[in-house]
């Protein structure tokens, strides 16, 4: 990830190019790039078999499955309800709408640990919500999904909302005057317009969910092989001073995240190019 910085200043009269770019690069390197490279640097000091043994350990593999599966489930829930909420907030008027709109940001503003203990208490077997179910929610993968749904909701709502707001009403009118029912207009005209935003929102929520720690640990129960998420494995290894093992798992997570990031960008680039979105 080397940056080639050829100065191609376009005869600008605005000062500060060298100073600001230099500072940006320096700060970025010290705070982000150098520390992150430590993960790969330390992984390189491991032998391949040692590395493989660590990351293919059944407990680790179970955690990948759990983290991936719960993040996926939470993402899908958020896509469905997040889109509905975005729709309701953009299209309808109802009392208390402004408060509801503001509330959607709560997961961004509320510390994850606070959310974690609140959700754990609510959904535990004798909690306000948990008591109504005759199966356990907290301390099972279901609890993890609830915590991740909480964390991921604003990502979907806040990416779909502006797209819906800027959607030209003409295309809906065109569809209606051509004889389409409201449902047909939604599925054939509106939904395809929203899809790129929905995918982006999903990916952002999913990526965040994969690495989420604070809100999950309290509600997960953290049983090895059952409700132990991948970030918790790293945490446990660190507490046991197993830095090498922690680093190996971290490498897997980092690579997964980066691939995901790349994928999002490719999807966005592709849709933008195909339909020439303005």
């Amino acid at each position, binding site marked *: 990830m080397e940056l080639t910085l050829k100065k191609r200043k376009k005869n600008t009269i605005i000062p500060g190019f060298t100073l600001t770019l230099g500072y940006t690069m320096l700060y970025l390197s010290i705070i*982000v790039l150098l520390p992150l490279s430590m993960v790969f640097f330390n992984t390189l000091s491991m032998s391949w078999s040692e590395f493989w043994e660590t990351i293919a350990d059944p407990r680790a593999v179970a955690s990948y499955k759990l983290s991936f599966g719960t993040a996926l489930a939470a993402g899908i829930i958020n896509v469905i309800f997040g889109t509905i909420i975005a729709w309701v907030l953009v299209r309808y008027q109802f009392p208390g709408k402004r408060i509801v709109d503001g509330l959607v940001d709560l997961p961004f503003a509320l510390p994850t640990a606070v959310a974690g203990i609140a959700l754990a208490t609510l959904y535990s077997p004798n909690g306000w*919500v948990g008591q109504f179910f005759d199966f356990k929610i907290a301390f099972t993968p279901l609890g993890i999904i609830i915590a991740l749904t909480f964390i991921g909701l604003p990502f979907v709502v806040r990416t779909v909302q502006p797209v819906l707001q800027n959607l030209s009403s003409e295309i809906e009118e065109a569809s209606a005057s051509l004889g389409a029912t409201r449902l047909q207009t939604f599925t054939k005209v509106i939904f395809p317009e929203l899809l790129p935003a929905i995918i982006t929102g999903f990916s952002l929520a999913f990526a965040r969910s994969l690495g989420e720690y604070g809100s999950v640990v309290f509600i997960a129960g953290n049983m090895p092989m059952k409700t132990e998420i991948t970030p918790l494995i790293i945490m446990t290894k660190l507490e046991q001073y197993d830095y090498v093992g922690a680093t190996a798992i971290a490498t897997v997570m980092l690579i997964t995240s980066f691939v995901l990031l790349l994928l999002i960008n490719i999807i966005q680039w592709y849709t933008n190019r195909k339909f020439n979105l303005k």
Partner: protein
Amino acid sequence: MTKPLEVEQETSLKVGNVATKSYALQESALVKWSLITISLIFLALFLILPLVSIFVTALEKGWATYVASIADPDALAAIKLTLTVVLIVVPLNAIFGIVAAWAITKFSFKGKNVLITLIDLPFAVSPVIAGLVFILLFGAQGLFGEWLFQNDIKIVFALPGIVIATMFVTFPFVARELIPLMQMQGITEEEASISLGASGWKTFFFVTLPNIKWGLLYGLILCNARTIGEFGAVSVVSGHIRGMTNTMPLHIEILYNEYQFTAAFAVASLMSILAIITIIIKNIIEWKAKDV
């Protein structure tokens, strides 16, 4: 022969769109209210109920217990530590955000998109890994561990570690608010200012800053909220030393794990109030920025 009629057609259309939502674009009342109900139930279950439960649990054993939980020396130390971290991290990231946005939006250079992606990178990294990397750098067995030990400098399990891990996690907030905003505003105003003889600093303070103030404030608010609440990264580097390296979220964790639920929720309620204030300020900013 043609009479120039430059009047824009748009006005008549706009009047129509603003006043009433067009006739053809409405669902039946049944669909509408079902969707609203679904949304509200979902939000109640996932957002409102947790929020309410925090305050109810915190005040369950009465006001006196609530106050005592917050006035506890360890709690006060945690609050103080969190404030210290905020006071260091938020200004540093704000300066970085402004500087980076200036470099990226006021000049054209190769690799700009790569740079923007790199600035966003911390968002894609699990907080636990964000903590881990600093253990690998500054921990006892880390890259600089030996050297730091010999010179008797403590980073990990001390304030500097907490600060730097938080900095990593909240790194992109200000920059990513400012970059699109300043990109949209372009450079003409700055060029005008400088061609009129103003210095770079004067141009920034009198031309750029007023234009970006709401965006900057928005970024600061988000950065601040995350700094206060960061848990995973701080949890790794802090060492959980009571009264010393426990931030508010870590203090809540300890209380919770010791089954001191009332105390845990008391501190949590304090943080929830901060979160609500954050949301209110955020909405005010959005509202103000729309007016501009």
